[in-house]
Structure formats: structure tokens, C-alpha cells
């Protein structure tokens, strides 16, 4: 059953600290950032950092790195590529899930920039969620090629340009989890609903012309929870920083399952 309120130990306390901007700062912007320290035994809090944007790079990730380097080295977050391809820096910025490295601070309309971890996830520390279950759901859709026919002796398994284009889009998924953690159905049922990222991955292998397990893949999804918790809320598609469309992929899977009944 959906639990709309945060459990007591997860509620945000009023103990947040404020780090003032340095003297003579020209373009001050306030960053309000969710903090949780597992060693403190205390509830999460929101700290406020005033940053001089005149000496800061344009992206939200630039601001986070500036804070960590110059103001507060205890701030923890994941990042790697800083160009939107590794999927590490996914977080909730200004109320929507996206990648900190490709989200421009100037695009945040409000006065303050509010930053939280991906929603409805167990928090390891600060902006770092535990993605164990998310990855397990990805693994559950068997995201690899399965074949029964023997491999061609002289090369790879080929497919036409048209067939390749079918998997072009979904293959671009970077497993950042922005979509799944934006989905209210996933919030309330993540123990049983696979979520848009895993279902997009399932779709990618279902429509792959070289794969021989289409039927088994559809069988595995035909379940009131694993697939049908999707009510086409469309949050996933709105959130995806790679402009992919998990909601459409899920709709296509539902159609394929309905279509094979007769």
C-alpha cells in the first residue's frame, strides 16, 4: 500500500546550516541541498550554500564541485563524465529528476536552487541513493542477446538498417534512474513494479530482430505488477535527460501482449 508520508527517521529536520557567500561576491545564488550523514545518527537536513555565480561554472554539477572543493568537503554526490553519458549525477533538481552535469543553473527559474537525491530511494549519504534494487530490476529483464539459431560461421549476426533503427533509441539509455524514480507507480510499488528504465531495456531486447526469446520476454512481463502498474502518467518521459520515451516503450509492450491473444 502506498505510504505518502516519509517514515519518522527520514523526515527533514530543521538543523540545516547556512554557509554565507564570501565578502564582495557579485552574483550570489543560494543552493539548498539535502544532507544525510549515516554516522551522525541524526535525521536528514537541508543545508544552504551561498555561491558567487561570477566565479562558478554554468552547470549545477559545477556548483556542487565548487561547494565540495571550496566550502564544504563533506558534501557527497556521484559524478564521473560531466557530459551526460555516464548517468552518475542523476538527482532531483528544482523539483524534477535530471543530470546535474547537463542542467544549467540559469535554467532553474526560482531564486534558490533546490537539490535532493532521486526521490523515494534509500539514501546512503547526501545525494547518493542506493541503486541496488534498480540494478536488480534491470538484470531481471535479461538485458542480453539470447539465440537458438547457430551463429553465422563467417561473422556477426547482422540486421537490416530498419531493424537497427528500432533499437537505436532505447539503446541510448544510460541507466541513470531519472525515469523510474520520477514515477509515482514506482514510488508506491518498487518492490513489484519493474519501473520504466527496466521496461525500456526489456523493450530494447523484445524488438531486437536478432533475439530469439521475444515470446518468453513477453511472458515474463505479463503480470499485474511487473508491467501493468504503469498508468501512463508520463513522468518518466518528461524526466529522461536523454530524451528517450519509456512510456511509449511500455505502451508498445502492452500492445504486443494484447496483440498475441488472438
Amino acid at each position: 500500500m502506498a505510504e505518502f508520508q516519509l517514515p519518522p527517521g527520514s523526515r527533514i529536520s530543521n538543523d540545516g546550516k547556512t554557509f554565507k557567500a564570501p565578502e564582495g561576491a557579485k552574483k550570489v545564488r543560494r543552493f539548498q541541498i539535502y544532507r544525510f550523514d549515516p554516522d551522525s545518527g541524526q535525521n536528514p537536513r537541508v543545508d544552504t550554500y551561498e555561491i558567487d555565480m561570477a566565479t562558478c561554472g554554468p552547470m549545477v554539477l559545477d556548483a556542487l564541485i565548487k561547494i565540495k572543493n571550496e566550502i564544504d568537503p563533506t558534501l557527497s554526490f556521484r559524478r564521473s563524465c560531466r557530459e551526460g553519458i555516464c548517468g552518475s549525477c542523476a538527482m532531483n533538481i528544482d523539483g524534477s529528476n535530471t543530470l546535474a552535469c547537463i542542467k544549467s543553473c540559469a535554467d532553474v527559474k526560482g531564486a534558490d536552487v533546490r537539490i535532493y537525491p532521486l526521490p523515494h530511494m534509500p539514501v546512503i549519504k547526501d545525494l547518493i541513493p542506493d541503486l541496488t534494487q534498480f540494478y536488480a530490476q534491470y538484470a531481471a529483464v535479461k538485458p542480453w542477446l539470447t539465440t537458438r539459431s547457430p551463429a553465422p560461421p563467417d561473422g556477426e549476426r547482422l540486421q537490416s538498417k530498419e531493424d537497427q533503427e528500432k533499437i537505436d533509441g532505447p539503446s541510448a539509455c544510460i541507466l541513470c534512474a531519472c525515469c523510474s524514480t520520477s514515477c509515482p507507480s514506482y514510488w508506491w510499488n518498487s518492490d513489484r513494479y519493474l519501473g520504466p528504465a527496466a521496461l525500456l531495456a526489456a523493450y530494447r531486447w523484445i524488438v531486437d530482430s536478432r533475439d530469439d526469446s521475444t515470446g518468453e520476454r513477453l511472458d515474463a512481463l505479463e503480470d499485474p505488477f511487473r508491467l501493468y502498474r504503469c498508468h501512463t502518467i508520463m513522468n518518466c518521459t518528461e524526466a529522461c535527460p536523454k530524451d528517450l520515451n519509456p512510456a511509449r516503450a511500455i505502451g508498445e509492450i502492452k500492445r504486443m501482449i494484447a496483440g498475441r491473444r488472438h
Partner: protein
Amino acid sequence: MAPRPLSPHLSVYRFAYTMALSILHRITGVALASGLLVLVAWLLALGGGPQAYAAFTGFMGHGLIQVILGAWLLAFLYHLANGIRHLFWDTGRGFAKTAARRSARMVIAFVVVAGALLVYVFFWPAGGVQ
């Protein structure tokens, strides 16, 4: 080590049109289902003879009940329009972000226009059929 807290969700997520329309579909669905009880009451009153029927219509003529009936009508219009939107999705169309936003606006426009018209026809004291 403390157990891992759950990160905030509803309290931080921007309430986008996507969520608003989706939850409204469920709310109106439940409202329609509850409204069916009124239909049952009407049928019972119909079977219960002229007196029971007069009592029923008298009760339904009450101002507050009329407002609730008006809201029920709007709920029906919304559920109908958004239900058609859902059925359209079920044919595999309208999933692009721009298309979904456009269909959302169409649903709202339909409810406003058809709602204003029908509320006028059924409930406006001076005009309409009553």
C-alpha cells in the same frame, strides 16, 4: 549505523500536468463509482411509488445536492475525455512529449466548454430544461 532514510518524493517533486491529470482520472473514477449509488437510489425511488419518487426528487432539488450533481457531471466529462486519451495511448499513439501535452490541453478545454454548456442547460435556474 542508522538505517537508510527514504528520500523525499511527493513533497519535492514538481507537480507537473502529467501527475495532475493522472491523479484526477483516479479521483473522478472513484467519484463516478460513488455517483452510481445515486442512480441506484433513483431506481429504488422509481420502484417505490409516486410518494417515494417525490421525496427523492425533492431531496435532489436541494441546493447543495445540485452543486454535488454539477461536480459529478464535470467529473464525468473529465473522466470521459481523459479516458478517450488513455484509449488513444492504448493504440500506440500520442506518446511524444508535445503530443501528450497537447492532448492534456484538449481534455481540459473539452471539460471547460462542455461543462459550462451542460451546467447551463441542466442547472441554471432561468435557462435550460428545468
